[in-house]
């Protein structure tokens, strides 16, 4: 790290990747209930489906700091617990166990078998487990296969053998599965191709005759070795294998899925085949063959079936007819339903289907029926020859609305996240994050807001505007609240909570005065504090009243079930405690405060003690004092805390604390709200009353009010300012402060009733609102607006709150083509076109493009205009340019390609379309388009003209009457310009393959001259200029980097207004004369799709916000002080050794996957500190010369200063 770089960044993620690489099902807790484990990027998460509510809850997520490539679950015979095997990039096989008590993954075994990294011959790509849990096979794409025998020892612990090899050179594996053979020797089946011969044969004959083989590998448990038992050629296009139940449950063997056909194959059995039905319809190509892309086998009560999914998303139910003599006699197939294309399908025993979608939200369906007795045509293999070379008649089906599955929950997924802008369009304190996501018809425009989701239960209008509200029980034994007490300027209103909420008058509460506090006192008493006195209402409605001394009123009050303290207008504090007969006894001494008391707080009476031993007093001289309530030293001052402004609210409360001495214990905190809108949380020492470890947060411009609430049976704090905030401990034990997505409240209190045991009640103007917070895990709220096709890029209107997206889908019929096909078709096919594309997809055809420009209004959540591209053009780039030749009027510029081919990249020609903004940008009007020789992939406004990157050439255009006029051009990139940035005359050009190069535009010479480029080929995806010399960007391999132009080269480029000097400078190693310096480099795994500078929280610093393809949103926070860098560097080092990544990858090597990590500290690793056991924490903190609390605070501050 001592590379001389003086830039250091702290990498944090604020949204985890949501793409699911693979999902597996099992009883990982060891209970009956089935759970789902998913691999999301480098994260392993445990999801628990709730069959009663039809929801899926995330229970645990763990960053393994490695690439998870495959997962498998297995169970040892006789056990009820499933274990997890991970195939990753660590060159090791990892076996994990989920420990439900500690809620963590525990690593049982880690066996090294090869080099680390994703390599061709190092196993980790495929993984299969014997269904009886006796062995697993881990394989690479080419050559290597390793078998591990799993067993248990005398102590019933899981053991793993050393590996058995089943390598075969020149052998490519397409698919792998374990066979179900009951308790015979475990057998694994693989689809393989041997390329050895075709590599030697120059005639190409051998290549044409290459066969795809289905190979059985048998593990002989007696001899402890693996043999290649059987191999048989299958359909050349085969791509997938599915296990067929064996032993007592079925015929064993495999289903081999190939293009257009599904085969049943097994050693020594006759094979059979059934074609995959094709969609019927006017817009469907009858000759297009489908392949199976996902599937699942489900066993139930002696029967079994398969659900196999084609690339259209259609699910087919496949069943087998079999008997013991001949094996499988028939394959039956019929259309089931259509769901999004999945990476994994899981069928739960409770009757649910989990679809881990390839793109877009993951869906959770409930089975309504199994498609047993419907009118769907069933096809079977009797009509088709099992020989792949025989021709057959294709079969067709008609799609229809779902009959068997009903969607119960859609789990938000940002994957794929294709572009992002941070902007504040709603004038809130903090900006929102706008993104375009998804692919095809399931694409969305999403708005992300920081906040917790709230569920509104009641919102009712009140006769006036109350200033405060409380709820109270009647007796201490009550479970739920009985009264809602509302305080108005001149009176008090009591409502009873029951079936209906109605006013009650005979409660004993004084209704003619406002209320300051309400409390259920002792066992059965009630207490009301009003400005003129204290009313103690006994269970038999007797009232004891303590009047305030003459000429003085009560200004502040605090209560708990045994104690009351009030502050008088004269600055005196009067303290009461309940005596043994349940009477409130006034303490004789009064404490005189120096200033006016603004707020008071007593904590709850701790369990097992008679009183809370501290009283916090806030005065208008900007101090908080802690007074003792111990009988020996009542109202003696213990400690003082000076504040920046007068306190407006106080709350003493005990909360769980990860830094405390013992795990699961709580710490006493004092929460302070200030008139300036600042919230503080300090630790209150239970013995000395000292205030330590103060954490500060600005909530909003209004004075802060604080009330204790309960969320998910955890104590939490409701802090009200210009927005309501909730302070709670998240699942890692970290204290979080998150705004609620709810209107601003004037007052809040807890609310508990039978319907809503953990609610909150609040006042908003003249309304009473009751609401609840159900999920604490998601602190970013998403709203989405559907888009038509895969969004490529989007841009915001410079002044108005509108976004413009360019969307395009390859191999998809455009709207115009679909319409004309539908018109030609007979009426019989009309039914098909009415099915919504979001569920059923668009009709596909090779070479066709569907593309459009959408105008998105994020405030009203709608698309205001959609312009479809015609003539097979596809839009790829977008810019808003103000042309100085048109009086700086702004235009929308869109770059398209005609008849584009994706790979190899080719297009007939490109066009640049110009649109005028109408109606403040709400709609667009087409002006003209200009032909270019190649597709413009990058557009940008530059000095009142348009800069367009077409292929390798950069061109400058001005706007003419009929078309664009080319003013200058230069070849500046090696392959293809994919991105442009500018400041002044400097242009940063990103190449698809060759990183970025810095160019300068010389106005006098009308020349674009590259003067500095990079020495590493970075396959740039996104860039942004951090300053005039520095560019931050990401590449296709998942790296984030920052490069900087040497100062001298930067200055020289701008010296001469003409480009003579630069032009004639000698080129260095066939590039520009200068080279960029690398400032920072970090492997993020996810491919950055956008990088920008933004400020995410009110009053926070500006940071680099990047988004990843799989749905990551991350931050790179620059360090300000050298001390912080040293601190976090040391902490990171300790974390690497004390919390080594779960899958066995070395953290430092992982973060330096392609290029050694430079100038970036992994915050996600540092944040795992709070999860370490207490002794490890103490040891690390000792090394850092700090206390555990200090370290945790520093880590928390790093995040809360800039993000959520």
């Amino acid at each position: 790290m001592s590379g001389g770089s003086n830039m250091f960044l702290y990498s944090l993620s604020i949204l985890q990747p949501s793409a699911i690489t693979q999902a597996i099902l099992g009883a990982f807790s060891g209970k009956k209930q089935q759970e789902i484990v998913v691999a999301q990027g480098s994260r392993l998460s445990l999801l628990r489906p709730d069959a009663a509510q039809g929801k899926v809850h995330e229970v645990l997520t763990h960053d393994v700091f490695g690439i998870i490539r495959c997962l498998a679950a297995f169970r040892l015979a006789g056990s009820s617990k499933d274990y997890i095997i991970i195939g990753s990039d660590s060159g090791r096989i990892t076996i994990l166990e989920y420990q439900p008590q500690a809620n963590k993954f525990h690593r049982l075994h880690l066996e090294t078998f090869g080099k680390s990294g994703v390599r061709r011959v190092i196993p980790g790509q495929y993984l299969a487990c014997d269904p009886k849990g006796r062995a697993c096979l881990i394989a690479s794409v080419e050559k290597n296969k390793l078998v591990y025998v799993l067993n248990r020892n005398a102590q019933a612990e899981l053991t793993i053998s050393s590996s058995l090899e089943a390598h075969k050179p020149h052998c490519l594996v397409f698919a792998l599965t374990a066979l179900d053979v009951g308790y015979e020797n475990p057998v694994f089946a693989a689809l393989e191709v041997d390329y050895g011969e075709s590599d030697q044969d120059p005639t190409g004959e051998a290549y044409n005759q290459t066969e795809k083989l289905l190979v059985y590998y048998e593990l002989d448990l007696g001899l402890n070795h693996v043999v290649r038992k059987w191999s048989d050629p299958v359909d050349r296009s085969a791509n997938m294998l599915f296990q067929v139940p064996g032993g007592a449950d079925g015929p064993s063997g495999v289903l081999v899925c190939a293009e257009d056909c599904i085969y049943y194959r097994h050693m020594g059995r006759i094979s059979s085949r059934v074609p995959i039905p094709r969609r019927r319809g006017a817009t469907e190509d009858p000759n297009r063959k489908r392949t199976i892309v996902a599937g699942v086998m489900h066993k139930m009560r002696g029967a079994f079936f398969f659900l196999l999914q084609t690339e259209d998303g259609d699910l087919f139910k496949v069943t087998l007819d079999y008997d013991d003599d001949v094996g499988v006699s028939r394959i039956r197939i019929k259309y089931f339903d259509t769901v999004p294309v999945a990476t994994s399908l899981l069928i739960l025993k409770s009757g649910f289907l989990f679809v881990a979608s390839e793109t877009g939200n993951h869906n959770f369906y409930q089975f309504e029926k199994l498609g047993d007795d419907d009118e769907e045509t069933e096809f079977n293999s009797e009509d088709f020859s099992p020989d792949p070379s025989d021709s057959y008649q294709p079969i067709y089906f008609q799609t229809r609305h779902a009959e068997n599955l009903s969607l119960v929950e859609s789990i938000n997924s940002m994957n794929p996240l294709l572009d992002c802008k941070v902007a504040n369009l709603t004038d809130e304190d903090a900006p929102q994050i706008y993104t375009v996501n998804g692919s095809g018809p399931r694409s969305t425009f999403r708005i992300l807001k920081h906040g917790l989701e709230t569920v509104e239960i009641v919102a009712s209008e009140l006769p006036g505007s109350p200033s405060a509200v409380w709820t109270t029980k009647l007796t201490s034994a009550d479970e739920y609240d009985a009264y809602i007490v509302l305080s108005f300027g001149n009176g008090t209103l009591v409502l009873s909570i029951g079936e209906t909420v109605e006013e009650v008058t005979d409660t004993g509460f004084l209704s003619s005065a406002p209320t300051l506090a309400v409390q259920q006192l002792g066992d059965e008493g009630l207490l009301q504090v009003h400005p003129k006195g204290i009313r103690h209402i006994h269970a038999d409605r007797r009232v004891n009243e303590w009047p305030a001394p003459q000429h003085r009123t009560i200004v502040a009050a605090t209560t708990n079930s045994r104690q009351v303290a009030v502050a008088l207008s004269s600055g005196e504090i009067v303290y009461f405690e309940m005596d043994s007969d349940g009477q409130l006894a006034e303490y004789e001494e009064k404490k005189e405060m120096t200033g006016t008391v603004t707020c008071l707080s007593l904590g709850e009476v701790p369990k097992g003690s008679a009183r809370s031993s501290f009283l916090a007093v806030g005065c208008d001289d900007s101090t908080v004092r802690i007074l003792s309530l111990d009988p020996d030293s009542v109202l003696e001052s213990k400690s003082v805390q000076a504040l920046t402004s007068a306190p407006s609210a106080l709350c003493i409360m005990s909360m769980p604390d990860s830094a405390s001495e013992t795990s699961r214990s709580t710490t006493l905190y004092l929460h302070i709200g200030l008139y300036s809108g600042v919230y503080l949380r300090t630790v209150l020492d239970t013995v000395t009353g000292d205030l330590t470890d103060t954490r500060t947060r600005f909530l909003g411009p209004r004075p802060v009010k604080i009330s204790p609430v309960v969320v998910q049976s955890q104590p939490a704090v409701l802090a009200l300012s210009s927005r309501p905030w909730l302070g709670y401990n998240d699942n890692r034990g970290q204290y979080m402060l998150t705004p609620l997505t709810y209107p601003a409240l004037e007052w809040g209190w807890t609310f508990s009733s039978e319907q809503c045991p953990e609610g909150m009640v609040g006042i908003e103007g003249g309304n009473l609102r009751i609401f609840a917070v159900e999920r604490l895990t998601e602190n970013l709220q998403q709203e989405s607006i559907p888009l038509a096709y895969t969004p490529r890029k989007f841009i915001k209107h410079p002044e108005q709150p509108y976004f413009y997206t360019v969307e395009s889908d390859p191999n998809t019929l455009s709207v115009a083509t679909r319409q004309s096909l539908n018109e030609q078709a007979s009426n019989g096919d009309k039914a098909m076109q009415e099915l919504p594309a979001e569920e059923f997809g668009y009709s596909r055809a090779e070479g066709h493009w569907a593309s459009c420009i959408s105008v998105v209004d994020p405030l009203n959540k709608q698309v205001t205009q959609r312009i479809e591209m015609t003539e097979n053009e596809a839009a790829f780039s977008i810019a808003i340019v103000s042309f100085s030749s048109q009086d700086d009027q702004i235009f929308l510029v869109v770059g398209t390609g005609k008849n584009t081919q994706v790979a190899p990249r080719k297009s007939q020609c490109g066009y640049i379309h110009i649109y005028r903004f109408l109606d403040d940008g709400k709609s667009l009007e087409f002006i003209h388009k200009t032909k270019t020789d190649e597709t413009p992939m990058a557009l940008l406004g530059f000095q009142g003209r348009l800069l367009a990157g077409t292929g390798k050439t950069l061109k400058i255009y001005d706007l003419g009457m009929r078309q664009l006029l080319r003013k200058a051009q230069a070849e500046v990139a090696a392959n293809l310009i994919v991105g442009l940035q500018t400041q002044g005359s400097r242009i940063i050009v990103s190449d698809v393959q060759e990183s970025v190069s810095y160019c300068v535009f010389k106005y006098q010479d009308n020349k674009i001259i590259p003067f500095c480029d990079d020495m590493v080929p970075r396959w740039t995806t996104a860039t942004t200029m951090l300053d005039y010399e520095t560019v931050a960007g990401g590449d296709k391999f998942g790296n984030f980097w920052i490069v900087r132009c040497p100062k001298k080269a930067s200055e020289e480029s701008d010296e001469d207004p003409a480009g003579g000097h630069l032009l004639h400078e000698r080129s260095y190693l066939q590039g520009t004369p200068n080279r960029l310096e690398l400032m920072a480099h970090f492997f993020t795994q996810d491919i950055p799709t956008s990088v920008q500078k933004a400020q995410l929280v009110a009053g926070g610093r500006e940071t680099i916000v990047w988004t990843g393809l799989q749905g990551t949103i991350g931050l790179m926070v620059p360090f300000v002080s050298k001390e912080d860098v040293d601190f976090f560097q040391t902490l990171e080092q300790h974390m690497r050794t004390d919390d080594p990544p779960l899958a066995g990858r070395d953290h430092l090597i992982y973060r330096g996957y392609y290029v050694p990590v430079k100038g970036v500290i992994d915050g996600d690793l540092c944040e795992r500190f709070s999860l370490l056991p207490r002794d490890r924490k103490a040891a690390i903190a000792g090394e850092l010369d700090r206390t555990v609390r200090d370290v945790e605070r520093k880590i928390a501050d790093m995040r809360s200063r800039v993000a959520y």
Partner: protein
Amino acid sequence: MADKLRTTQQLEQLQARYVGTGHADTTKFEWISNLHRDTYASYIGHPPLLEYMAIGTGEPMAKLRTKLIEKMIQPVGKPPEKED
């Protein structure tokens, strides 16, 4: 002489274990085929990279994965005629 023999043996061992390890007589075809196969294996092995391409080509990942493995069979066309 013994040293040389050992070196050769070690090299042979490496070549057997790690596919693509070169030797003095590696032809251009072998080298480039190997390079392409490594590349395709990397595309398949990195889930984000595979997804990136799947979105670009508008194909499901499973289909693209199969296509890429198919390409690994003969990534750069037929081998050249052997010169005797």
